[in-house]
């Protein structure tokens, strides 16, 4: 953590009312946040020292110390809130989450672990993302086919962007000018002008073949479209997998067009970018494989056996770790040879959810919902430690600045 960040946090905790941010007239949140946190003890001084744990059934966000694996605390959001995903602001001051069953967004003050704001949003808020400058946070409302734009200064919903189809994940360009929205209820990626918070265009990832249209039961019954557009390391290309079309569309963000479609396995959930940017891996739950895409050639260079119900990919220690939700295994692949190296048995009768990787690329923090635990996996040795008492039904984890912060 930088000195600047420590300074900022101590300032917030010690003298909220005196901070320059608080002094602005338009910062309605300042009064509310200050009132809510005034006098409360500082529990977290370094936001990068904790893992966020999204607990769906205990309706809270847990904070676990990375060094000790002890719980620092948790913030209860309310009965039946059922949070889905949490994310820390870039400066580490706030954590935001969407309460899927409460139709609200929640803002938590990190230093004091205080819920400072509840904001009504659209139906069933799930995935979310901050703009690169941290000013806004986009909250996807899949059942409302909209994105709620939350202003982090006023802590209000300043706009709701309509016209989407089951929007799931949100990806911002590095310069923050555009956001790309994965629409799971359609086969296109939405492009949002972040300056005006307006849907600019829809990029069709691919077209169904004529013969495939004979299969209305599949294509009209339940759409498995685009869940996410994953950004290449240079910020130029997006890799958007489409579940029904079994393809990954490569979008050039300069002119927002699909420059290539790559055929992968069946029912790809999304593409996960390796930390060095060389590869993108899709988990294909239709045929229980993974497809490894070489991003320099935009070609599939390996199709390897995976497991059932794969929910995510984490990269660490030169390996890819693929979470198989229902089998109780994490599948491991060597990213140098692009071959499987085995699998880690986490347990039986488990429902594994998603994991985040620490910033050292050394450990994974895997949420396991049915046994209410977090499994800390050492990437090099592939040994793991079970941490209990983290909350009920942990659905996901998040570490500030991690390259593997994702949800499902």
């Amino acid at each position, binding site marked *: 953590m930088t000195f600047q960040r420590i300074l900022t946090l101590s300032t917030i905790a010690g003298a909220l009312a005196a901070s320059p941010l608080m002094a602005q007239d338009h910062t309605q949140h300042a009064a509310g946040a200050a009132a809510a946190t005034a006098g409360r003890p500082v529990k977290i001084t370094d936001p990068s020292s904790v893992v966020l744990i999204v607990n769906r059934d205990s309706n809270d966000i847990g904070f676990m110390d990375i060094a000790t694996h002890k719980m620092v605390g948790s913030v209860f959001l309310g009965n039946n809130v059922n949070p889905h995903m949490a994310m820390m602001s870039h400066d580490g001051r706030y954590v935001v989450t969407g309460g899927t069953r409460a139709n609200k967004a929640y803002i938590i003050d990190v230093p004091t672990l205080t819920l400072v704001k509840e904001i009504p949003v659209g139906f069933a808020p799930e995935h979310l993302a901050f703009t690169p400058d941290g000013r806004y946070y986009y909250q996807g409302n899949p059942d409302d086919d909209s994105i709620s734009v939350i202003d982090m200064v006023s802590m209000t919903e300043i706009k709701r962007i309509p016209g989407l189809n089951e929007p799931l994940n949100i990806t911002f360009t590095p310069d923050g000018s555009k956001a790309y929205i994965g629409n799971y209820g359609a086969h296109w990626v939405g492009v949002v002008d972040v300056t005006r918070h307006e849907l600019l265009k829809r990029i069709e990832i691919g077209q169904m073949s004529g*013969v495939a249209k004979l299969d209305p039961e599949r294509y009209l019954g339940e759409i498995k479209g685009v869940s996410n557009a994953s950004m290449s390391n240079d910020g130029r290309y997006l890799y958007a997998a489409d579940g029904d079309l079994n393809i990954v569309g490569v979008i050039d963000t300069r002119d927002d067009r699909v420059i290539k479609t790559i*055929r992968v396995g069946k029912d790809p959930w999304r593409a996960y970018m390796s930390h060095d940017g060389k590869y993108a891996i899709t988990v294909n739950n239709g045929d229980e494989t993974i497809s490894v895409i070489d991003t320099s050639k935009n070609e599939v260079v390996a199709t390897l056996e995976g497991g059932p119900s794969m929910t995510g990919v984490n990269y660490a220690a030169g390996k890819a770790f693929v979470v198989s939700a229902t089998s109780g295994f994490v599948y491991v692949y060597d990213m140098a040879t692009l071959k499987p190296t085995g699998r880690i048995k986490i347990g039986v009768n488990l429902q594994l959810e998603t994991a985040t990787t620490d910033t050292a690329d050394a450990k994974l923090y895997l949420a396991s919902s049915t046994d209410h635990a977090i499994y800390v996996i050492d990437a090099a040795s592939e040994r793991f430690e079970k941490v209990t008492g983290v909350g009920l039904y942990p659905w996901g984890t998040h570490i500030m600045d991690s390259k593997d912060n994702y949800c499902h």
Partner: protein
Amino acid sequence: MTPFPFPAGRPALLRAAIAATLCCTAGTLHAQARQPAPAAPTTASQREQELQNRVEQLERRIGDLESSTVLSEPETSVKRVEVYVDENGVQYTEPGPGRTPQVTYQRERVFRRQTINEKLEEALDDAASRSVGVGVDAAIILQNVQQDTGPDAPADGNTYELASADIFFTAGLAQNTIFYADIVGLSGTPPDNEVGGLTLLNGYTARLVNQNELNLRESWVRTELANQRVGLTLGRVDLTNYFDHNAVANDETTQFLSDALVNNPMLGLSENGAGLAAVYDPKNGFSAKFGYQQSSSTAQNLSDSLFYLGEVSKLFTPFNLGEGTYRVWFRTDNSSGDDQSAYGVSLDQKLTAALTLFARYGQAENAGLDDDEFYSVGLQLKNGVVINPEDAWGVGFANTELGGGDAEDLLEGYYNLRLTQKMQLSFHLTHVTEKPLGVEEVSYLVPGVRFQASF
């Protein structure tokens, strides 16, 4: 009711007002809200603040009421808990001196609000997991035989049609343990009876026991042990599903139709029967298999016509190519009275995302004669060089030479058109040359169509 956490610093008066509000029932909320606070506020701003707080509390209360409707009742589930118990039977959540770890179960209530759809899906999934799954795989194969060379043969100019239907049953018996049964019925005439080649021109013919009858093709129980690294299958099995596998030349329902491009004849298994297959798969690209199977419907005991098979396979990515799987197998059997052995290899190597090559080789002992030999090579193309995205096409060549002198060359090309998820139509063109010892060779051109539906 969940206790309301009083914010620090709020006046006692306000806390009392909040407590009073929260104690109200829904029916009296409005009345309570209109009542004056226990002590009158002294200034207008304080009154305004109190009203604001009251509104907030009412909104919170409405949220609580909404969340406790029928659909939002707390769920009750049973949780497996690891605890630590000392000598007095006192439970702790953390380990400590004198505490022994124990596993127990406890009921818990959670606030998981679900919609009607989620409730229904959950119930349906639960019901499905307890029921017997049924699947159908049906196919109709039309083939025409045109004699190319050789003396007049009865098959010349004839058309053949074979209809096949497999009915599968699966059921989960226990953790990682399933039961599977496959009942097959066939009707029609394949060309193989009149062509009389060394291998079958229609791979479905191998399933044909008696026409218009249902036959039990497979019936087994499979369980997985040792962290699911070892799979054991026991019952009436088809060991060709486990040995001599090939990614692109192994399935007569979607790939080549000719049996020589589906199996390796040197494996020698002609009928399914009682047996066992053990597979060790650590999921690192390597696997080892062992199995035995009886391959005679007239056997009197398990020692008759018994085949033992072993195989090792490894996934490679040689020369920076795509992944390829290389398998080596060995078998021994007593079907001819004496023990005879055979060995073979089967490999498939992906060269590009679209192109996969395959090859097989096998050699088998033949009592009193030279060894039988077989090889096949070919390729499969998909992804980008097809009409529909999930289509595939392939070309393969197979050569069989028996120790007795008979030989066969077979060349087949096919295009598999994926109509829907459940229907496929494929077109086949096969050229086969039979070279019986001491007799003039005869060759045929066999165009065919296969319609397949699985659901």
